[in-house]
């Protein structure tokens, strides 16, 4: 069995066993923590499709997290609680916004691409702040969890398993796409743009399609996130959130299937660890966890060139 297969089997077993173990140990907090990580892992996996396989450094991926979350929140606000409808809106809404942002930004490259994706996301962030009806700066409480037949997302453990299943599904989906004909063309465009054009790949539609798929998938993560926190704030769309997602992908290993998942775990757990270690000293210190996080991230990028996933498998990205 390949190392990657062993990794996934172990990961699924451990993650599936976590809720009963945490409840037996009387530590339900960990279900909540890992659930957040699983949802962020979906977002990071979606970003990996365009960043890792497509070479598009989107510095605005949090936009879709926000649109997904607000789709759920706003529909619930107006009394539409059907989960199918909410999540379909989250996915379709994110896809549409990604289409619009992508259509403009993919015409550029390099630093301009980064800046344009960032600028669009900041626009959405300020739009969120200015929408007083939906809480503006303070955000809004989710009126009711997304309602699905037979599945109650209000139950923390159920929501955990839903997040786990969707995380695995999104990793599988991105992995299939990345090795498909479409994915090969996307990777070729990243590897050597001039050559890809010269053999006849139409790069613009290929990249745009990847951008839209990625945005839609991140929208789903946003819908989950709204159900996870039960509270939606514009902060979900801030550039800090976009940066966190990028770091998860890079830390985990760009262009690899397990990379973004590992990155999400490492990033969030490291953050929690630093907060609690510094918190031992004083509450004031805990607020400055980022001071230690920064250098650690820099070191990890320097020493693990292929990210944490490089330790798991030898597959080529």
């Amino acid at each position, binding site marked *: 069995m390949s190392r990657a297969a062993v990794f996934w089997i172990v990961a699924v077993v451990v993650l599936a066993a976590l809720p009963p173990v945490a409840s037996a140990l009387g530590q339900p907090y960990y279900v909540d923590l890992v659930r957040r990580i699983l949802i962020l892992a979906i977002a990071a996996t979606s970003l990996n499709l365009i960043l890792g396989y497509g070479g598009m450094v989107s510095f605005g991926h949090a936009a879709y997290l926000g649109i997904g979350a607000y789709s759920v929140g706003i529909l619930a606000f107006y009394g539409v609680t059907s989960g199918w409808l909410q999540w379909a809106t989250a996915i379709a809404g994110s896809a549409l916004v990604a289409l619009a942002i992508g259509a403009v930004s993919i015409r550029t490259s390099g630093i301009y691409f980064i800046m344009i994706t960032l600028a669009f996301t900041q626009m959405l962030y300020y739009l969120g702040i200015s929408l007083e009806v939906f809480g503006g700066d303070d955000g809004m409480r989710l009126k009711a969890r997304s309602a699905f037949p037979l599945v109650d997302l209000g139950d923390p453990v159920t929501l955990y398993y839903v997040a786990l299943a969707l995380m695995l599904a999104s990793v599988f989906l991105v992995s*299939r*796409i990345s*090795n*498909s*004909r*479409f*994915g*090969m*063309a996307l*990777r*070729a465009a990243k*590897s*050597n743009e*001039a*050559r*890809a*054009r*010269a*053999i*006849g*790949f*139409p*790069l613009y539609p290929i990249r745009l399609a990847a951008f839209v798929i990625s945005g839609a998938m991140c929208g789903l993560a946003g819908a989950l996130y709204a159900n996870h926190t039960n509270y939606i704030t514009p902060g979900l769309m801030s550039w800090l959130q976009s940066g966190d997602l990028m770091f998860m992908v890079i830390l985990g290993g760009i262009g690899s299937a397990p990379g973004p998942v590992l990155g999400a775990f490492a990033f969030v757990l490291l953050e929690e660890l630093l907060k609690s270690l510094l918190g031992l000293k004083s509450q004031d210190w805990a607020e400055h966890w980022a001071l230690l996080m920064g250098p650690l991230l820099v070191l990890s990028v320097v020493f693990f060139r292929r990210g944490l996933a490089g330790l798991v498998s030898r597959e*080529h*990205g």
Partner: protein
Amino acid sequence: MVSLLSVQELWKSFGALRASDGISLEVAAGETHAVIGPNGAGKTTFISQLAGTLRPDGGSISFAGEDITRQPAARRARHGLARSFQITSVFLDFTALQNVALAVLAHSGRTGFWRDARTDALLLDPAHSVLEKIGFEKTRFNVLAANLSHGEQRQLEVAMALATEPRLLLLDEPMAGMGIEESQRMISLLSSLKGRLTIVLVEHDMDAVFRLADRISVLVYGRIIATGSPQTIRANEQVRRAYLGEDS
């Protein structure tokens, strides 16, 4: 004689430099047409405009009766205009076979989001046969392009161009940086293609040019000063003075 490629009064300048100063050229279907000229004559600028990576300032290019002057490079490639690069340009993080399979994929015009392309016989079989046809070392098929020798990468360039089943092959110095033995292999590869494909060849290696070309155009300072058979070009006084005179 039917022209497959017809270039009319092509102009391109970079600031004060006129890299293409009214180039007109007809390439007949099936011929191997070499473009020679001293360094800085504008050969690569010319090829880039034919391939579509540079927009001409004026003039027109038609290919198979269609005006392609404003067409982007990728569309030209899908219509049968393939190129190799002067500076080796392959997908370094893919294997030799995958490089060619990517060219097959680009040419197929068919995409898919689910089936695994890495084991797709519709891509790999044609890639295999192209590599075999050009005599690429079989044991090197699955080597990453980054780990291939320079000569092998140059071969790969040609293989990728061929895999798109082109009607016209634009070769920008295919022998650049090659040793004698590698050059000889490339020359015999190109002569095996001769006649079956229309080829525009930009090359410094005069030995290769005179062995391969049916006709030769001489480009000096962005202008074509002479076009003709290898014998006529060899005998042309103006050409000898401008170019060949230095080393023949």
